[in-house]
């Protein structure tokens, strides 16, 4: 038995961890009859990928099976990381079509959570670029679920609860260079930030960082970071010869847990102000390398230790378009009133909803992080209620503490998801600590 937690390191679960090396290992694990869940690289923040029974470590299945270099189509096992995909194919001009904020997610995890990137408003989520997935169901049989099939739609965003994802075929995006033309714009108010996102809805990538400390009229001021892949013509001549060369950055590590007090209310406030003013100093377009643009936090491995031993919690909700303005304002007011500043508050635009259980809905999403303590937990209950009042829902890949009743009130799709699980035999077998907590 081993104690295992998600990336937020909040409330570890006692589980038996077993490494999977091929389909036979997974079939044997299923035949044992113990409740289990698959785990990729452990980047889900909460308890989605730990089981109170058996946790399948899918990193042993990390082989790439084929790549069509003309069309950018990759077939790979679930344990392959996006970082592996980038290492192998980026030098040939291919990049993941959708990427979350870390390249250290597994393919299986990205599918299970149907992760989104800064381009959801244009391209949709990860699932929009998946042609098929192979899933081992409760009966130990492997089903290939093609895009559009019912099993496919439940598996994308299904948090590993439809079966064990073994392999998938994904489509990559052709790019000409390793650079992003980033256009940084500072805004003064929340309304201005949202206006900006609306006005730039055709930008391929867009994300805004919000200052969640400042109150009053300046509440919700932020930095919008728009981006597009640079073409060769965007590069200065010295970069054109090696358009995919990425500047080498030192890999930093947090070798020990910081004391919980290191990220206290004061340092979080200072960080928010400094971040805003630093961003404001350099508005307008400039070239940023792909790694810094998409994966700023990956530069510090083990950054999750920054919150200390107790860990931290993420809160991410989506609000429908019509409720986004008042809803975001209410969320920020509640945070400011609590005095619990989030270190990074990220606002993104979402495009249309897809899939049976995927998180995104047309509108806006706000992601926040808080140290794991009683005050934050109390604040998050308040944020739950505001989200429900505005017709929003919650991101399961980040959740570690939501009560079952909140999930049920937020998501009308839960009943159908449960029925599918009962009918396919998945219910008793594919179980995470999260699915138990939420009664999925």
């Amino acid at each position: 038995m081993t104690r295992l937690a998600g990336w937020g390191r909040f409330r570890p679960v006692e589980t038996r961890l077993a490494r999977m090396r091929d389909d036979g290992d997974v079939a044997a694990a299923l035949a044992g009859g113990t409740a289990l869940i698959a785990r990729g690289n452990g980047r889900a923040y909460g308890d989605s990928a730990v089981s109170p029974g058996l946790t399948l470590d899918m990193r042993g299945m990390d082989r790439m099976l084929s790549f069509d270099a003309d069309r950018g189509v990759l077939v790979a096992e679930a344990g392959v990381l996006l970082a592996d995909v980038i290492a192998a194919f980026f030098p040939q001009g291919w990049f993941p079509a959708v990427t979350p904020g870390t390249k250290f997610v597994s393919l299986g995890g990205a599918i299970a959570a149907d992760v989104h990137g800064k381009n959801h408003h244009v391209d949709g989520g990860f699932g929009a670029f998946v042609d098929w997935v192979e899933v081992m169901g409760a009966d130990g049989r492997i089903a290939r679920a093609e895009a559009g099939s019912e099993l496919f739609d439940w598996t994308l965003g299904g948090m590993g609860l439809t079966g064990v994802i073994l392999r998938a075929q994904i489509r990559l995006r052709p790019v000409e260079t390793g650079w992003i033309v980033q256009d940084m714009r500072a805004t003064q108010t929340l309304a201005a930030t949202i206006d900006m996102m609306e006005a730039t809805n055709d930008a391929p990538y867009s994300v805004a960082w919000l200052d969640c400390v400042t109150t009053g009229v300046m509440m919700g001021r932020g930095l919008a970071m728009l981006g597009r892949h640079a073409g060769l013509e965007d590069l200065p001549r010295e970069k054109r010869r090696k358009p995919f060369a990425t500047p080498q950055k030192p890999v930093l590590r947090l070798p020990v847990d910081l004391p919980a007090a290191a990220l206290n209310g004061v340092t979080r406030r200072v960080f928010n102000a400094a971040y805003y003013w630093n961003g404001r100093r350099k508005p307008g377009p400039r070239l940023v390398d792909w790694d810094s643009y998409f994966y700023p936090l990956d530069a510090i491995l083990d950054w999750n230790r920054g919150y200390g031993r107790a860990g931290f919690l993420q809160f991410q909700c989506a609000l429908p378009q019509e409720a986004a303005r008042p809803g975001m304002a209410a969320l920020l007011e509640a945070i400011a009133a609590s005095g619990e500043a989030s270190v990074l508050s990220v606002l993104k635009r979402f495009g249309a909803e897809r899939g049976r259980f995927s998180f995104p809905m047309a509108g806006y999403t706000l992601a926040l992080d808080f140290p794991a303590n009683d005050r934050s937990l109390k604040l998050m209950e308040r944020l739950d209620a505001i989200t429900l009042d505005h017709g929003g829902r919650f991101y399961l890949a980040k959740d570690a503490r939501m009560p079952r009743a909140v999930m049920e009130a937020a998501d009308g799709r839960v009943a159908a998801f449960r029925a599918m699980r009962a009918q396919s035999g998945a219910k008793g077998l594919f179980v995470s600590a999260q699915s138990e907590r939420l009664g999925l």
Partner: protein
Amino acid sequence: MKGPVLILGAGSDIARACARAFAARGCAIQLAARDPGRLEADRADLETRYGVTVSLHEVDALEVEAHESFVAGLPELPMVAICAVGLMGEQDENAADMTRAALVMRSNFEGPASLLGVLANRMEARGAGTLVGISSVAGERGRASNYIYGSAKAGFTAYLSGLRNRLAGRGVHVVTVLPGFVATKMTEGMDLPKPLLAQPDEVGRAILGAVEKGRDVIHVRRIWRLVMAVIKAIPEAIFKKTSI
């Protein structure tokens, strides 16, 4: 580095990591195992990731009579051969049942020595090549908890040092790898101290480095040199009463 790299016992976690490390350098890879059919996904992986040529070969380390023809049947005599063949078993069972003990001894000593011996002769005739034997710190001193495995590894370690001695100055280099604890199928479920536990890809990188730099004996994590120096320095009269 020119010429293909042969990996013997290619189904193991360490073997997979070695294959990736060398393929990333652009080397053609020959994967050999008892059941090469199970290596299809690994072949696809190496070809897909690194664009190198990969061939699969059938070999049973225990069938020593077949080793000459196995090596003769390779598409090309490898420039580097890495032997990752091994079997630990359960010490209690090995001690109780001598047929099991013999299997462990043959899998860790006789088989690997035979395979590398055949390759050594051919590389010596060519005048170039590197042989890598993955042995174990368990062979440094016999302990109650795994002396059957350990004694076979001790034999293999001595064999490698003799081979190195014989081939020095003949263009063929021999690397002895003493990995210490590695997070593989062999150690799964054991409660091992983190600072002593290497990941397979660390082993792969260490072996690539040792081959490129022409090193003789390597520990994957340096701390093992210290640990083993201490364990070897304990006088036998005291050591026999301990349970290390």
